[in-house]
């Protein structure tokens, strides 16, 4: 029997994972399911949400927590019919988001293997911010329309 999902469960996700990139895909799937339940556009479900959230969680694991399995990453998602708010919290010291402005699409950067994560988050989400609240938090917001 399929478990009944309450409206609150359908709207929110609150999960803590070890710093292991193998957990990312399952979390992304859960968030996409909630967005689909609120009729987000197909493009959001197939591109914006999965790519931006994968970037945020992998940054938290690999950069924030330095791939230390003893440290955890806390992911919260709040979805309604108007917007998706994602918060990804790691145990790192944080970084200056405004200082990370390098453009990976310039000719001198195009052949670099890295440097596209934050760029993609910014391009695929409507709002990206970072703050500290005892941990290092990246908040992403995407409007449904």
């Amino acid at each position, binding site marked *: 029997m399929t478990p009944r999902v309450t409206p609150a469960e359908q709207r929110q996700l609150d999960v803590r994972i070890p710093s292991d990139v193998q957990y990312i895909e399952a979390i992304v799937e859960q968030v996409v399911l909630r967005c689909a339940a609120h009729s987000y556009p197909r493009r959001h479900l197939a591109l914006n949400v999965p790519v931006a959230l994968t970037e945020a969680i992998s940054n938290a694991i690999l950069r924030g927590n330095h791939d230390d399995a003893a440290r955890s990453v806390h992911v919260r998602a709040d979805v309604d019919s108007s917007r998706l708010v994602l918060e990804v919290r790691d145990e790192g010291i944080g970084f200056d988001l405004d200082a990370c402005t390098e453009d990976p699409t310039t000719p001198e950067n195009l052949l670099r293997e890295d440097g*596209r994560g934050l760029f993609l988050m910014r391009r695929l989400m409507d709002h990206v911010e970072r703050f500290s609240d005892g941990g290092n938090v990246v908040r992403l917001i995407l409007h449904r329309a």
Partner: protein
Amino acid sequence: MSFSVSTRGDVCIVEVEGQLIVGNRQELKQKILDELEKGTRKVLVDFARTGYIDSSGLGVLVSLAKKIREMGGDLRLANLNDDLQTLFELTKLDTLFQISETRERALENF
């Protein structure tokens, strides 16, 4: 998610099933490096059955393309859906790779 490898003439075809992301990019890289070790110089990555790709996946494709071109070969792409095409356009990687609509078209002039 998995990768299947086949050959057509002198072209190695790698099909990406599922996502190409931080958790499995090294597996793709190693599979293609193994083919290069065997003498392959033409690699076609087929995304017909791919969901999404993150920056790590894109980075691996860039890294492999550089290496293969240095060896005198090429890495080309086929079957990007609209979302993946947009991803390559956003990052301007559509200017770095030869991208074909179908596998057959990619193989025609490889």
